[in-house]
């Protein structure tokens, strides 16, 4: 029994060591290169790598070479069994502002071993509150928005793309297959 516990302990320590030493900044560069293929560029950011975390501050997001958003902070935590991406203070620029309130306070992505087949997403901002689940197996996103008064008043056209639920929330489903 002691031997089994020792093996589990050493294995956990080994995984933690790998996660600690992983070149997180370079992984971030890999993600940036992949996003570039979709014409999305994250620029002018400050990258801070520390322990199990990677902090990206003051990033400008360009889409098709057009400055589309400014993100104050992106915090990526990876502990293998629990991974999260916390995005705070997003300001969208003019084009997006035609469809959506421009300020998003935070967006959180969570992936835990307790729910291994789904990624949970939570967001809140000028549009209201949103909850989404991304199914890794089906590559399917289910989004539910509780719109704010501002969203209901000024962005009716955007809400038309969503399905209104009985409880007043709006939902949207899409496939990434």
């Amino acid at each position, binding site marked *: 029994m002691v031997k089994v516990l020792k093996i589990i302990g050493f294995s956990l*320590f080994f995984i933690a060591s790998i996660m600690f030493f992983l*070149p997180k900044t370079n992984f971030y*560069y890999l993600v*940036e290169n992949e996003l570039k293929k979709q014409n999305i560029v994250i620029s002018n950011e400050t990258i801070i790598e520390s322990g199990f975390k990677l902090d990206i501050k003051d990033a400008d997001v360009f889409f098709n070479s057009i400055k589309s958003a400014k993100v104050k902070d992106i915090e990526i935590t990876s502990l293998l069994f629990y991974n999260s991406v916390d995005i705070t203070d997003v300001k969208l620029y*003019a084009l997006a502002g035609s469809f959506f309130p421009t300020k998003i306070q935070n967006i959180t992505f969570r992936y835990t071993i307790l729910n291994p087949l789904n990624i949970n997403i939570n967001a809140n901002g000028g549009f209201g509150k949103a909850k989404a689940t991304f199914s890794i197996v089906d590559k399917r996103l289910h989004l539910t928005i509780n719109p704010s008064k501002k969203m209901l008043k000024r962005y009716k*056209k955007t809400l038309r793309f969503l399905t209104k639920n009985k409880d007043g929330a709006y939902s949207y489903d899409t496939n990434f297959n």
Partner: protein
Amino acid sequence: MIQILIKILTIVIVAKFISLVILIFLPKDGVEQSIETNFTPKYHRISFKNMLDSSKYKQIETKKTTYEAGIVLKNMILKGLYGSNSNGFAIIALKSKPDETSIISVGEDFQGYELKNILKQSIILVKNSKEYILKIKKSKSKDNATIDYVKKKENIQDIDKNNISKKDINYYISNPKSIWKDISIVQLKDKSGFKITRIKKGSKMDRLGLKKGDVIIKANNIELTSIKNVMKLYKNIKDITAMEIVVLRNNTEVELMYEID
């Protein structure tokens, strides 16, 4: 106890070695958006003098006729556009379904037409190597933020009578202190620009159309986010032939264009 410590140390070394191996296969640099910073404005105003230069005149005329030759599309509505030339989007809808808008970026297709170019008030679409022009739909609606934005960008103040002369530039270069007699500016706390706190009435700065309370955010494509950027512009001012200043006035961007004779 020592055995456990040796095992832990071995694990740490192996983990570090694995991460180094992984590092070899990962990119060493990220992607940055390159923005060309130069001291020339995005576009030049065409002065009468330039028109007398026959070669320049012909070049402009040829370009104009090419676009005018495009067939005007009547089954589509251009609801908004963003960007210029080969960068940007257009918001298009079919006249039969005006509420179903599509956002098309340059190079993408809409109903078999490829978006080739974005102009000031229209776009150029190509189908079977024929060019078609689609002009922006004029809307009275105040809710149409996209069109408002386009209008805002085109809010160019005409300061034709107040062009800058080389003499004035040379005077300010040789007497930099005299600039501060005519104008006072302070950098905003968020470093997004420089606010004019005082402007001497009747001075050259006043005649340029600058006003107290204006926030100068950009000059000749350079974002004035630091003193360093201002100095960069000041150093190169001798070599420029045109000046474009973007100011925030009552929360609206206003472009001031000057020619340096």
